[in-house]
C-alpha cells in the first residue's frame, strides 16, 4: 500500500521509494529509508502535509511525495 494510506497511529515497513534522487538522499539522511519502520503521527489541519515518526525522528511530507513511498502494514501492534 501507499504511505498516504497509512492512518494515524498505524505502523508499517518501508518497502520501496520511487522519488527523485535528491529527495531520496535527503530522506535517507533524515532516517527514512527502505526497511525502516514508519508510523503515521498526524495530518496537518488541512490534511496535508502528513507527519511521520521514523528512525527516531519526526518528519513531515507532502501528500504527493508520500504517495511515492510503498509500505507494508504491520498488523499486530
Amino acid at each position, binding site marked *: 500500500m501507499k504511505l498516504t494510506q497509512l492512518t494515524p497511529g498505524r505502523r508499517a515497513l518501508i518497502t520501496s521509494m520511487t*522519488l*527523485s534522487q*535528491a*529527495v531520496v*538522499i*535527503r*530522506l535517507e*539522511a*533524515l*532516517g527514512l*529509508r527502505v526497511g525502516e519502520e514508519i508510523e503515521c*503521527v*498526524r*495530518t*496537518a*489541519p*488541512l*490534511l*496535508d*502535509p502528513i*507527519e511521520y*515518526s521514523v*528512525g*527516531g*525522528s*519526526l*518528519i*513531515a*511530507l*507532502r501528500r*504527493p*511525495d508520500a504517495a511515492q513511498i510503498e509500505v507494508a502494514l504491520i498488523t499486530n501492534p
Partner: protein
Amino acid sequence: MKTAAFVGNPNAGKTAWINALSDAGFEVGNWPGVTVERKQAQVQWGSEKLTLIDLPGIYDLQKTNNEEQITQDFLESQPVDCLINVLDATHLQRALRLTLKLRMLQIPMILIFNFYDEVLKNGIEIDAVKLSRRLACPILCVSAFDKQAVGQVKETILAMLKEPFSGYRPLLTQPLEEAWVRQVNTLQLAQPFASSLALQKQAYMQLCEAQPQAMHQALYQAIDSLMSHVRQDPQRRLLKTRRIDAVLLHRIWGLPLLLAMSFAMLMLIYNGSSPYVGWLNQLTLWMQHGCQLLLAGVPAWLRSLVCDGLLAGIGSVLSFLPLMAFLYFFLGLLEESGYMARIAFLMDRLMRPFGCSGKAFVSLLLGLGCNVPAVMATRVIEEESSRRRTALVVPLISCGARLPIYLLFAAAFFPGQGGVIVFTLYGLSLVSALVLSLILSLPEQRRQPWMVLELPVYRRPSLKVVFNKVRQEVKNYTRKAMTVVMLAMTVLWGLTYFPSGEITTSYAAQFGKAASVIYQPLGFGTQWPLVASLPGSIAAKETVVGFLASVLRDKVEAPLDFAQESKNLVLGLGEAVKNSVVHLADFSQEGQDAGLISEIGRLFDDPLGKLRAYSFLVYCLFSIPCIMTLNALRQEYGTKLMLKSIAIMVLLPYGMSLILFQLGRLLYWLSMIR
C-alpha cells in the same frame, strides 16, 4: 594561528557551544553575503591563538543543498586543523552517519555528545569508551552551559592540536577495507610525494564512486554495529514532544493557537518596548540640549550639523533599539524552542495556492524582523524556482525598520488607534506578498515541488543563546545607525542646510518641491519634506524618521534649566522600566517624541489628511528595499533578480498609493455630494 571548525546536524547545539567557548568578550561576527551563515570567532587559550568556525547544520556531505555546499566548500578549500563534531547524543543513530562521513575527510576530529543531561533523563545508556575506541576520536559527554564541560572541551581541542595525526581507517566490511588499503597503496606509488592523508581521502572517494551500492550498505552496517554500544528506546525520546504536539498541532486548534500566539507576541513586543523608546527619545533631546550648551562658541552651521542633523537623526533611529531587541528576543524563542518548524507544518497547505511553501512562510515571518536574514533563510526551500520567487516577495514584508515610520504617523494622525493602523499595514504587506507570489508563479508549470520538513524535538530555549542573538542584532542595528544612517544623515543635513542656511530654500526643499508633482496624485505630494525623505530610505528605512525629525522639529534651543532636565531623565528611566511591565497588555500608551508628532500632524490639515498620511505609509511600506537587502538579493540570486526586485518595488508602491488615495478621495466626494 590554527583553525577549528564546528560541524553537526541542525539543532545539535553547535552555536551554543561556540558561544560558550568564545566567551562574551570576543567578536562573533556575521559575515556578509554568501557566507553569512558561516560565523567565526577568535580566541586566545593560553599561548595558542585559535579561529573557531561555526558551519551551518548539515545531515550529509552530498552538496544536495546550500548548507552542505557551504560546509563542504569550506572544508575543501580552507585548511582546518581540527573538526569538532557536535552530536545530539539522544539521537546518535542519525548523528553518527555524518560522523562516519566526516572521518573520511581525514582531519583530526573531536566528538561532543551534546544534551547528555537528556540522555540520562531518557534512560539511554551509551558506552562512550567503546565508541571512542572504534571511531578513534575522543568523545566528550556533556551538556551545554556546564562550566566544567567548557574547560574540558578547551583542553581536548588544545591536546588534539599538538598530537600527530596519521589518519582514520574507514569502518568498512573486510573486503571493502582491503580494497581501500589496496587503493591507498596504488595511489602512493603513483604520487610518491603527496601527503598520506590526502591519498587516504582520495582512495575513499574513488571507492565510493566505484562501488556506490556496496559502500552505501557498508555505511549502514557500520552505524548498526556502532549502535550496539547504545541502549535506547527510540520512542521515548519523542514522548514529550508528541504530547506537546498533540495540543499545538491539533487538527482543529493548531491554527487558531498559532494565530493567538502571534497576536500575543506582537502585543508583548510593542508594549514591552515602547516605554524604553520614549525614554530614549527623552535622552536624545537631553543630549541635543547638552550639545547646544557645549557648542555655544562654534560656528552656527557646525552646531546645526551636530544638533539638528546628526543627533536628531541618529537619536530617533536608535530610539527604536528596544523594539528591535524585543522583536529578536521572541523570534529567537520561536527558533530555539522548535516551534518555527511547526509553523511551516501548519501553514504549508494554506500557502500552496499562492505558490509558496510552509518554509517560505517562515522566511516571510523572519522578514518581520529584518529582510536580510529573511532573504538568507530562503535557502532552506528545496526548489530553485520557489526559492527565487520567495526572495522576490520578502522585501514586501514590513521589516522592523519600517515600523518607526508607522508608529510616528499613527500617533500623529490616528491617536489611540496606533494598533489598528499598524495591524492593517502588516495585513496589507502579507496579502500583497501572497498575491505577488501567486502572480510570479503563474507562468511556471503547476507541478507541485517536493518538501521534506523535520520537526525537531522541543527543547527549553536556552536564554543564553537567545540573548546572544539579541545582542548581535542590537549591535548590527547600532552599527548600521552609526555608519550608513549617519552618513545618510550628514548628506541629508547638508541638503537641508545649504545653500542658504534656511530649510525652506535648501536643495532638499527644491528637490522635494520639484519632485512633488510626481507624488501629487498619491496625496502626499503637497508636502515636500515627505517627498524629500524618500530617497534616503534606500540607505536604510529608518532614515525617513531621522530625516523628518531633523527637518520638521523646531530648532533646538538651549533649555532654561538643564540641571532639572537631567534629573527628570534619570527619574524617567525608572518610570519606563515600571511601565514596560505594568502596561504589557495595554495598547494605549504612547512613548514617542511629542514635539515631532505634533509637527507631523500639522503637515496635512485638510479633511483628506488621514488618507494622505496613510497613503504615505503604504508608499513607505513597499518602496525600494534598503541597500542591505538589495545586496543580499544580489549575492544570493544575482544582479538580474535584484534589478527585478527594484523594478517591482518602484512600480508597486506608486500603484498601490495611487489606487488607495484616488479611491479614497472618490468615496469622500461621493459622500459629500450626498
